[in-house]
């Protein structure tokens, strides 16, 4: 198997991360925001695996496993909250969720 230079794989990870960030900032639907966070976490995991592969060590993969664990836990709670929100508000538009803010801001 041809080795893949680390720089390039990390660049791919960085691109995926940026795409996730764009998604997070652009989308107003909570579900899409959660998806975007998954993309970012996945990109970070990819970066770890890349680095682990570069160092020929299992640590990167181990870290990836923990990242996936955390992503699962977070998604579970996030989706539970989405269900709650859906029953409270008619929309999943996050910009509509502004009950919490300064009392008198302009």
């Amino acid at each position: 198997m041809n080795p893949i230079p680390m720089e390039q794989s990390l660049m791919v990870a960085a691109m995926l991360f940026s795409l996730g960030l764009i998604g997070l900032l652009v989308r107003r639907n909570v579900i899409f925001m959660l998806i975007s966070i998954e993309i970012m976490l996945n990109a970070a995991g990819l970066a770890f695996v890349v680095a682990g592969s570069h160092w020929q060590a299992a640590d990167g993969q181990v870290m990836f496993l923990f990242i996936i664990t955390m992503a699962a836990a977070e998604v579970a709670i996030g989706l539970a909250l989405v269900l709650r929100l859906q029953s409270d508000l008619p929309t999943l538009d996050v910009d509509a969720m502004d009950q919490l803010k300064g009392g008198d801001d302009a």
Partner: protein
Amino acid sequence: MNTTDLIALSPLLIVGLSAVAILLLISLRRNHRAVATLALGGLALAMASIPQAAAVAPHHIAPLMMADGYALFYSALLLAASFVVGLLSFDYLEQRGEQREEYYVLLLLATLGGLVLVGANHFVSLFLGLEILSVAIYVMVAYARSSPLAAETGIKYLILAGTSSAFMVFGMALVYAQTGTLEFGPMAAQLMQMEDFGLALPGMAMMLVGVGFKLAVVPFHMWTPEVYQGAPVPVTAFVATVSKGAMFALLLRFFAAFEADEAQPIMNILGLLAIASMLAGNLLALLEDNVKRLLAYSSIAHLGYVLVAFLAESSFGDEAVTFYLVAYFISTLAAFGVISVLSDGKSEADRMEDFRGLYWRRPMLATLMTAALLSLAGIPLTTGFVAKFAVVAAGVKAALWVPVFALALGSAIGLYYYLRLVVVMLSPVNPTDDSNSEATATDDAMSTRAPNPAILRPKKVPIGPAFALSILAIFLLGLGVLPTPLMDFIKSSVSELR
């Protein structure tokens, strides 16, 4: 894992086991009092195990954790804070008809995360500690299911924390790519050998996003007021103290390993963040009428103050950081404790109006609140003053003139809003004839609603919070007058750091 490892980890193990034990208990029988007792007992036992752990310290539980005096000191601090939060939570939850028992599982798990974080010596433990803490807090802030704000608060915190975690993990990956190790010590040694940090520097910068988010420094601060306001008061107290304290302990440990100038860009960033936080936090709090939000903004500024001592990069600075965090814990817990005790089953006492005339209705609580606010403002004879003094001294010693100047400026602004609340508490309680004469009437649209009568009605403070608050009061003033013993203790605890 050998016996020594287990002893060194005993606080962690006890907290974790208590969480599991509570789950078992819940599956047998739901009983709020029993569950709370078990949780508090677990925390107390964990605290009691710290001297045992200290006997084997410093002990490196390879490769993940470090059980040294520093970690144990912060563990004790976090456990004590959780204990206080637990005491406050019991009566808070007791007044509300929710499913209350799971809360304690989450409280213990979050504490566990904090304990892992302060002992973390490795990216894996850092990450896991942080995430256990975060995930538990996601749920805790949204715990009050019947509250219309709960879900909103929860999702906001979750998404922002998730984002910041993603940044942090990506940063870690970059650092790992550069150094090939996940452990702090070797990592630092490795970087020292290199001519420049290479990818590790952007990596650390991205990690700062995660750190900054947890610490709520500008510009990662914007979640704070919302989460403080929307979360149940004891949870707010927890977020304000344990979560931030644990993260700061980690930050200190991580960067204590680096001495070279290569890390200077990171320090510069932190300096800028500190200055921005001190100024923005105080400005934001200036005319805020919601007390929980006010404390949120002020906490932004406080973390900025602590960063000043952190930037000193000396063991003196480490002591100042630690002492400041202790003082901040005590004052913040006392302030939120008072809010928690004042809140009743229906509402939370978080409006400025709720505090009007408190001094004349519930003098003890008002006095404690005043002491807590003065301590936060850094008025002499409170522990906050000694802490701020130590921080400034550390900053001045390291010739950090700009941050110290920002600190002085921020404190000057800060005193105003703390005293504003104090004055409100001293005002009379008939809002009908002096609705426009509030001592610090602002031109903002002040709510002229009457305070919630239930809040002002003198009632007996339940024994749990009463105990917690009296302990806090003793420390609040005691450490302000006689801080030397604690300072010496801190000195011996953090000496192993550098």
